[in-house]
């Protein structure tokens, strides 16, 4: 167990022997980190949004087909609906049939056009959602072929097909956003390497003196690693505060859009915890990078 006075001893032994806080790299590093953490948090939020959207699309819509019944002049809509339900009931592989009400259809249209903007005489198709038994082989094309013989103006939409394409696109974007996060991490590492080398170059005389009075490389490297961690943390906190403010603003705007395109900004606790961990992880990366860089550079000294 380490007692408080031993902690104090340790702190004094390693504290601020190198005047790192006063040099140019130390002044500029927190701002760079703030920007990087800001961008990383936004990119990571993008990953989380896309991930949950892709999951939702794939989970909710598998095995469903939608029949669209366009209005035909001179024919009763109710009779056509009854006919299509009868026909569907006889087709093997159809598990469940649900007629979408006209008010639901109107609601779907209004999300795109805005409430009250749908003309009264706009011919709305009637929609019938069908659950298909897995492995039945029933496709949109085969179902349309079956129905068209008895019902002109009918079409069948396979939601899964375009949702799969959408999910593929979503996954590509997800990978792209992850690549951006990785690139930001690499940029942070490169920045720390650069500033540590610069710091060693600026304080070469003091470091040489420390060596001459018996300091180990680890003692000198500890000064750089602590400085990098503190600056990383300071910049990281600044970056995440701005990033969370941005996300809060976006969420507020999105909640007022009331459209299916509005982004679903993650609300799960683990997602927020993940975002909050970004500055901590960044400062740890900065600390480790500074230590490795310092030890490598110090090994080149006499």
């Amino acid at each position, binding site marked *: 167990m380490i007692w408080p006075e031993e902690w*104090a*001893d340790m702190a004094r032994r390693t504290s*601020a022997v190198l005047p790192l806080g006063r040099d140019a790299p130390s002044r500029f590093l927190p701002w760079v980190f703030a920007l990087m953490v800001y961008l990383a948090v936004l990119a990571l939020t993008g990953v989380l949004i896309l991930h949950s959207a892709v999951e939702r699309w794939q989970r909710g819509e598998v095995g469903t087909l939608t029949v669209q019944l366009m209005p035909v002049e001179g024919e009763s809509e109710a009779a056509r609906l009854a006919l299509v339900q009868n026909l569907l009931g006889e087709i093997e592989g159809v598990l469940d049939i649900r007629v979408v009400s006209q008010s639901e259809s109107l609601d779907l249209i209004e999300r795109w056009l805005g409430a009250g903007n749908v003309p009264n005489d706009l011919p709305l198709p009637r929609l019938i959602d069908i659950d298909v038994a897995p492995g039945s082989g029933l496709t949109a094309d085969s179902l349309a072929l079956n129905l068209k013989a008895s019902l002109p103006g009918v079409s069948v939409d396979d939601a899964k097909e375009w949702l799969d394409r959408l999910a593929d696109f979503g996954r590509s974007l997800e990978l792209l956003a992850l690549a951006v996060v990785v690139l930001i991490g690499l940029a942070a590492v490169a920045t720390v390497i650069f500033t540590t080398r610069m710091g060693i170059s600026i304080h070469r005389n003091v470091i040489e003196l420390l060596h*001459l*009075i018996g*300091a180990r490389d680890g003692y000198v490297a500890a000064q750089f690693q602590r400085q990098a961690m503190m600056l990383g943390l300071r910049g990281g906190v600044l970056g995440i505060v701005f990033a969370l403010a941005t996300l809060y603003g976006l969420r507020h705007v999105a909640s007022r859009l009331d459209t299916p395109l509005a982004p679903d900004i993650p609300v799960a606790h683990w997602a927020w915890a993940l975002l909050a961990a970004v500055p901590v992880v960044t400062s740890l990366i900065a600390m480790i990078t500074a230590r490795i860089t310092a030890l490598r550079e110090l090994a080149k000294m*006499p």
Partner: protein
Amino acid sequence: MGPEVLHDVTFEINPGEFRYLVGPSGAGKTSLLRLMYLAMRPSRGLISMFGSDVMMARRKELVALRRKIGVVFQDYRLLNHLSALDNVALPLRVAGAKEAEIQTHVSELLAWVGLADHIHALPESLSGGQKQRVAIARAVITRPRLLLADEPTGNLDEVLGQRLIRLFEELNKIGTTVVIATHNQNLVARNPHPVLALGSGEIHADDLAGRVG
């Protein structure tokens, strides 16, 4: 590689000796001291310190060797952002000494060199002589086995200069080997000890070797 500053330099300093390293400016005194306090390694030749071959020693081994050596630099090399106390405490801190011991020992030593009232002063607020005393205190705080001093009395008045030579002599009596590089002939005459004379990068005279080159 630049011109060879030292060549055909062969000498031996035994434990417990007190030596002056004398010679005109440019004779190579500082370069020889830099080799001795392990700030650089020779381009060729052999240096053996405390039984270890410096040329062959690994970096980690150099740390142990350096902790046996105290150095008073000609330009003091104090850290301007640290107080006199923290400057003197540095060799103890890097060696992992307890803070309570550090405070006691450093305060006593600073009082001994006449800086009791300047313990918390930054080097910038000290005179040249005061800085030099802080540098000397830092060099001797760990009671090194070898003390190397480059013009240690250069900025001190005669009284204080004599007092510091007494400190070196006392350290020498309790076993510290002392080598003082100086061009102050009065200092050498007043406090006689064997001399190693350098000129043009060569040994010109070695009192203990009994030769004049």
